[in-house]
């Protein structure tokens, strides 16, 4: 699926003294099967922007197109049919909110995740399968499941709640997944597991992925391209690694690269001839070894 915005602007509380332009004339295009990251400082408009992708927010001006279809086309015939259209759009574009509490509502975890598949008209057997798959994708399978699935989602720990909220959207198997800070609150294993699950789903189902995150490691492993927002504008855009290697620009915006990038840049700043676009600790160590053992170095001293 493709998502496109044309001069998208969103003003909160327009016409009041507190009017605030959260998204400012943003035009972008995400193609079918693409994985795109969105980053930017606190309050830069990331959540506002992505809530337009499935019609949760209506643009103040500008357009949003999903698979070429304008979500808010102004003609009369279209408006009459609009509600149904939005419902089908929300099936195609699954949105995971920044705070999981905002999307949990059923009495038990099982019911919460089953809600989507049932709504799609699936039978109980298939629903059960979907729920199980979704729980396993978020690392809640195994012994823990029996225990957790009949509990109230509001009695869970923060990280468990986030996993359930993600599972609820995965169970609908949307063609596009929009995730707003999906790994916040997950423990390191849960985080890695979710990233792997998303990468696998993308491969298996040609999922289009849009990921909002402050975590550059997440964006590095999930996305090919990132957009950087600042005060509602897209200020930087390009291949993920390329954008990450521009540490000066990122720091200016209050963002930062993963420690590995800072390490390599720190070495380079001290005159070391090392690559600065590496993100993985193992790759970084190999590169450092190469440099340490290169002419002019005395690797034996490292043991000192």
């Amino acid at each position: 699926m493709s998502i496109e915005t044309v001069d998208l602007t969103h003003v909160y509380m327009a016409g009041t003294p507190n009017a605030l332009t959260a998204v400012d004339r943003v035009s972008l295009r995400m193609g079918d099967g693409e994985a795109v990251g969105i980053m930017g400082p606190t309050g830069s408009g990331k959540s506002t922007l992505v809530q337009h992708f499935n019609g949760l927010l209506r643009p103040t001006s500008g357009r949003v197109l999903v698979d070429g279809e304008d979500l808010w086309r102004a003609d009369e015939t279209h408006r009459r049919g609009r509600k149904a259209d939005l419902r089908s759009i929300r099936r195609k574009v699954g949105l995971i909110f920044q705070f999981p509490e905002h999307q949990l509502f059923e009495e038990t975890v099982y019911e919460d995740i089953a809600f989507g598949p049932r709504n799609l008209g699936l039978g109980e057997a298939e629903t059960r399968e979907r729920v199980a798959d979704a729980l396993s994708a978020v690392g809640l399978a195994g012994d823990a499941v029996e225990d957790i699935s009949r509990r109230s989602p509001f009695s869970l720990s923060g990280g468990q709640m986030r996993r359930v909220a993600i599972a609820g959207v995965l169970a609908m198997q949307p063609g596009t997944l929009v995730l707003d800070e999906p790994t916040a609150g997950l423990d390191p294993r849960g985080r890695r597991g979710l990233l792997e699950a998303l990468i696998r789903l993308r491969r298996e189902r040609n999922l289009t992925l849009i990921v909002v995150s402050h975590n550059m490691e997440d964006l590095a492993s999930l996305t090919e391209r990132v957009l950087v927002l600042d005060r509602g504008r897209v200020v930087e855009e390009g291949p993920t690694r390329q954008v990450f290697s521009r540490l000066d620009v990122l720091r200016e915006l209050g963002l930062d690269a993963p420690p590995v990038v800072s390490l390599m840049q720190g070495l380079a700043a001290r005159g070391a001839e090392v690559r600065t676009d590496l993100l993985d600790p193992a790759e970084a160590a190999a590169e450092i070894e190469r440099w340490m053992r290169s002419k002019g170095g005395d690797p034996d001293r490292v043991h000192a």
Partner: protein
Amino acid sequence: MSCAAAEKEIIEIDGLGHRYGAGTDYEVKALEDVDLRIVRGEFLVVIGPNGSGKSTLARHANGLLLPTEGRVLVDGMDTRDPNRLWDIRRTVGMVFQNPDNQIVATVVEEDIAFGPENLGVPTEEIRRRVDEAMALVDMGEFSRHAPHLLSGGQKQRVAIAGALAMRPRCLVLDEATAMLDPRGRQEVLRTVRRLNREEGLTVIHITHFMEEALEADRVVVMDRGRIVMDAPPGEVFGRAAELEDIGLAVPQVIEVRRHLSDRGLSVPSSVLTVEELVEHLCQSRR
């Protein structure tokens, strides 16, 4: 000052157990046999997998939850004593994972003023504290905004400001910075670290960012309701395999350090940060 205030420990936890829904079908044993002493002025970081009991433990530190086993003393006051609850709450300030649950007013500055007002702080002093707290988290510009209409990170900043304005002697941050951008996180932690050093604020910081644990005087690791490690950061992260076993990780710099030693380039275990590693490598190569 009461004589309790002269004691070294601000929080003493002995044999603490907590069961949610005790006696029902849905009983969850969230804490078991937890012993923990937190000294005045300490900067403690708590890490642990999802569901390991960190938030449950935090809620015991100001009497929001009461022990089903064992006891918790705050400044010598037993959290089960209803007459002391008020004093306990003003001693230990809390910021939770989800800022929505902490919003109490419709305007940011009133939200931040709510705590000090409740403590009976005089009006001008409240004004001063609110302005200071808003400046500390860089939210002055939003003082007249509605807190529930802010972005995720902005809400977290307001929640932190609210806790700071109460001037507690102990501050519990339960993943309170999870939604902030990297600089925001650094700034908040730096502020808290400064209050810790200069004013002796005791800090309990719960986080999934292993890097943040490097800042701590002491790191407590939880797993399935128990404390499984309790040591300075260098020592905790030296036990990488055990951490990975329970689903945690080590900070990236330490991971690079391990890969280097696999390649025969060993780096001393005292090297924990990016700056230290850069320095060490440049020195070694010379």
